[in-house]
């Protein structure tokens, strides 16, 4: 009963998010995110139909669609990165370098883990691959969040909602997957039971924050700041040069 309720709630919420996205124009603004939601909705509808009419096919289908949705969720991370660094060319370059490092490291870790796994069955292999892809996603997402917090990137309400929902989902998933592979762990059973509910919570976050289109934060007026900035920067440099020489003098033993 509960499982069915969560299942149908998820489908309904995804449909609402897509419809609202179309009505508010956010679908054009965040196409990759809505592509992800569309993918999940399609796989869930197919899953429900297969579950009802061809139950034997459900298990193999489940694992392959699970993997497909994890791969599709990378579209969300690309969307977040694309939208948040639109006006920050320098930061975009810095983030790209950091992502490449993190991506390389996590892929290497996940690949070694995957190869050592010894695949008992196709579902186990897919589950492990899915887990490793989530770890990579988690690593990249963490770097992205750190950059947003550290550089105080101004984000619109819609984008913040998208990031929060996504972080909640990926964060919970990563912890859950880590415990999943720990045999006989009771905490893992509890977490697995909570996973569908956390997905519904994520969809509610997205539904609320993407219900209507909010304006993007205002970017600095370039001409004025540029003129004022150059004037102030030259003055500041002069002060700093004077100050640095004083520090050097004071700090000498």
């Amino acid at each position, binding site marked *: 009963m509960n499982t069915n309720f969560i299942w149908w709630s998820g489908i309904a919420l995804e449909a609402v998010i897509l419809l609202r996205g179309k009505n508010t124009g956010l679908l054009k603004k965040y196409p990759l995110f809505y592509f992800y939601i569309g993918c999940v909705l399609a796989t869930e509808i197919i899953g429900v139909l297969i579950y009802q009419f061809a139950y034997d096919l459900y298990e193999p289908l489940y694992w392959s669609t699970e993997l497909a949705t994890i791969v599709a969720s990378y579209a969300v991370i690309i969307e977040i990165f694309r939208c948040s660094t639109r*006006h*920050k*060319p*320098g*930061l975009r*370059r*810095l983030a790209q*370098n950091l992502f490449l490092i993190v991506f390389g490291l996590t892929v290497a870790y996940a690949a070694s883990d995957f190869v050592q796994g010894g695949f008992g069955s196709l579902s186990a292999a897919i589950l492990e691959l899915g887990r490793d892809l989530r*770890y990579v996603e*988690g690593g990249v*997402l*963490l770097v992205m*969040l*750190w950059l*947003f*917090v*550290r*550089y*105080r*990137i*101004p*984000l619109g*309400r819609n984008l*913040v909602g998208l*990031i*929060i929902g996504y*972080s*909640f989902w*990926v*964060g*919970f*998933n*990563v*912890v859950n*997957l*880590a*415990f999943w592979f720990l045999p006989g762990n009771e905490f893992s059973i509890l977490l697995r039971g909570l996973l569908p509910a956390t997905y519904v919570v994520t969809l509610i976050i997205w539904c609320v924050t993407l219900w209507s289109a909010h304006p993007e*934060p*205002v*970017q*600095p*007026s*370039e001409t004025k*700041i540029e003129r*004022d*900035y150059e004037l*102030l*920067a030259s*003055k*500041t*440099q002069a*002060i*700093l040069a*004077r*100050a*640095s020489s*004083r*520090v050097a003098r*004071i*700090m000498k033993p």
Partner: protein
Amino acid sequence: MSGLLAIVVLGILILIFGLRLVLQSSNTSTQSQSVTMEEFANAREALDTVFVEASAIERIFSTDDMEFISRSGTPKVQRLFLKERKALAIQWLRKTQKQVAQLMDLHLRLAGYTHEPSPRFELKLTAKYLKFSLVSYILLLLLWLRGPFKAKRVVAYTSGVAGYFCTVFSLRLESVEFRR
């Protein structure tokens, strides 16, 4: 087991940073996102005071005055002197912490406009800032516990790092290029 711990930490950090982003967004929604004229002026003023007061700071932590008071003052005067110096030292440290934090904040916001930020430099700066924060809080604790005259080496470090941040700030200003 260590792998599991690393992954759990990764998941928890994602959740913590997500929460932090919510708080940050709700705080900055009422503030201006750009670096304003006033902030520049404040940063300049802050820098000026850090260095103009440098000789006075040296004096706060210098043992010369304490030696003089010990030789000629009564115990009551010594206690009063110590109390005042301790208050002054703590006040100076708090001010320095605040000014460095202000510079760091400005630097981070300006970094967004820089066309060629160096990842190595940014990581080095973060590490240096974290170290500075840690040492300055240890110094604060030392000042509370042992007074200003027994923490001179840490004071020298704090002043040195504050100077480093000012130089870094200067370099940042040189490299900032607003979008054209």
